[in-house]
């Protein structure tokens, strides 16, 4: 069912992109995006037809999304992006590293996972500091802490 829905979503995306590409004062600047959106609509319709025939014509190339496993990672990503400009890249990256390391650790004990993650994250960030700041001379955003 998900495979069929994605084909319909593809058509809708194509129609949306055509809609945002149309009706502008400087039509010439939007001609290329309009052609692309029209192509997407045609391909989306073809995908839908292929998927909705009695025996699906498209190869089986879909797999289920493991939401239960992945939602913590997605939350960590969002928090990381919110924290990076406020806390600074180094502190927020260390927190994101430890969070991903602990939440997805194969070890049963959180304490044991954390005691491994913290020094590894600090060592990794020290290497990044040397490479980016000292060697490449790129200043990373500094927030409240680092």
């Amino acid at each position, binding site marked *: 069912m998900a495979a069929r829905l994605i084909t319909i979503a593809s058509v809708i995306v194509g129609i949306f992109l055509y809609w945002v590409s149309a009706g502008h004062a400087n039509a010439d600047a939007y001609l290329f995006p309009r052609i692309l959106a029209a192509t997407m609509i045609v391909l989306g319709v073809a995908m839908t037809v292929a998927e909705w025939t009695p025996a699906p014509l498209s190869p089986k190339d879909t797999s289920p999304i493991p939401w239960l496993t992945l939602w913590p990672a997605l939350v960590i*990503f969002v928090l990381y992006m919110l924290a990076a400009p406020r806390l600074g890249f180094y502190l927020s990256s260390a927190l994101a590293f430890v969070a991903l390391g602990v939440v997805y650790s194969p070890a049963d004990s959180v304490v044991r996972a954390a005691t491994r993650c913290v020094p590894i994250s600090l060592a990794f960030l020290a290497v990044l500091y040397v490479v980016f700041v000292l060697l490449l001379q790129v200043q990373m955003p500094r927030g409240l802490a680092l």
Partner: protein
Amino acid sequence: MEFIEYLPQVFTGWNLLVLLLGTVGGLVLGATPGLSPTMAVALLIPFTFHMEPITSLILLGAVYTATVAGGAVSAILVNIPGAPSNIATILDGHPMAQQGRATEALHYCFISSLVGGLLGVLVLIFFTPVLADFALSFGPAELFWIAVLGVTVIGSLGSKSVLKGLFAGAVGLWISTIGYDPVLGEQRFVFTDHLAGGINIIAALIGLFAIPQVLTMLESATVGKDVSMYDMERRSLWASLRFNLGRVRALTIGSIVGIFVGLIPGAGGQIAGLVAYDQSKKFSRHPDRYGKGEADGVISAESANNAMVGPSLVPLLTLGVPGSPTAAVLLGGLLIHGLFPGPNLFTVHAEVTWTFIGSLLVGQVLMAMFGLWISRFSRFVTRIPNNFMAASVTVLAVFGTFSVQNSFSDVLVMMTLGTAMYFFMKFGFSPAPVVLGIILGPIAETNYAQGRLIAQSADGGALAYFFTGTANLVLIALCLASVGYSIVSEVRSIRRRRQETASWQRA
């Protein structure tokens, strides 16, 4: 010959050091399951942004070469391919390790990679200038069709479903239109301030190749790794060298297949290895030994995937059409240094281009020399838990993306595109056509707009300008042929699936 003229540049202090570091680092990265060559090169691009163009291309080329060969270490020792191009190596490499012949398998892997890799780079040296001279006569119409060909070929040949591949390519092309129109200067599709400057190619490359890989690693991170590793026996390198060079049939099949697959845009090392393995088995006097630790299986697969590296750069350097997904990332590396594929690379930027090609040749030798030594240590990286690997790649992707333009908007774009791509991949869409669309989009649009302007003053209008002329017709035919070939292959597999389903239902 210009190649010989610029070869000594490879051996100047800094270039040689970077080549060594790239080779050693690439071997280790290649041996790490989950870190594909494409992702490794994408993550490295921000570091090269601050380097001289020659040095940066030498580093990227060395990593490309070494990761492909290094992937065989984990394929042989722990039955996990370090890169997709090493899938065929597992079939006989791992059984050899199980039989206590791990060192022997690794010897064959690196010796065969050297032979295939050298032949591949020689094809690059001799073919590229010829094709580049030919491309000199191309105008906007031909360049537009070449950009379309790049997306079409990688979309149709590089994806399981031709329709999904082409759709992904069209999405990539559309994403490239965000920001300023390259000809008229009009700002388009800027829904938020973060998109004001358009989509940065490097941010897109890193996001599309690294973040889905991170999420895939996290899927199985809590389970841990059950890595049962085989010890490496003592074996004379000379004995392996004599045996390996005597396997002319397997080496020839692997190298020829690798070279041809490399020249086909969008195909990549995975296809090269599998096709070479299959052909080597068909031509063997002992096909029954394949899959049970047959040395020819390792030799053909490894010579093929490294023979693919050089030729995959032929269409890239001359026409801007990459021969593999990793070559597509290398195209991004060229563009950020203001190096546009085509004849100019061999005239205006001859020093950069020929030194780069020379470094690929020297890199093959270094890869074989260090590969055998590094494999003793790099096999331990296969034990790094996925949670640490994923966390490291995430943080590195954020730092790398930011460092290109000192822009946090790029980081947000990278994370958003990457996370979205992971979900699209679950529905059968592949990141390579999207990346190529983003890279080739501005080239296609600029030449399309210029072509229309030229056509206004010519007879027949835009239709005649874009659809007449031998080169245009050949390029259009190639676009149609790549799509047609993929459709035929897809229809065949559908028929086979239907027959299998029908026979299963009858049973």
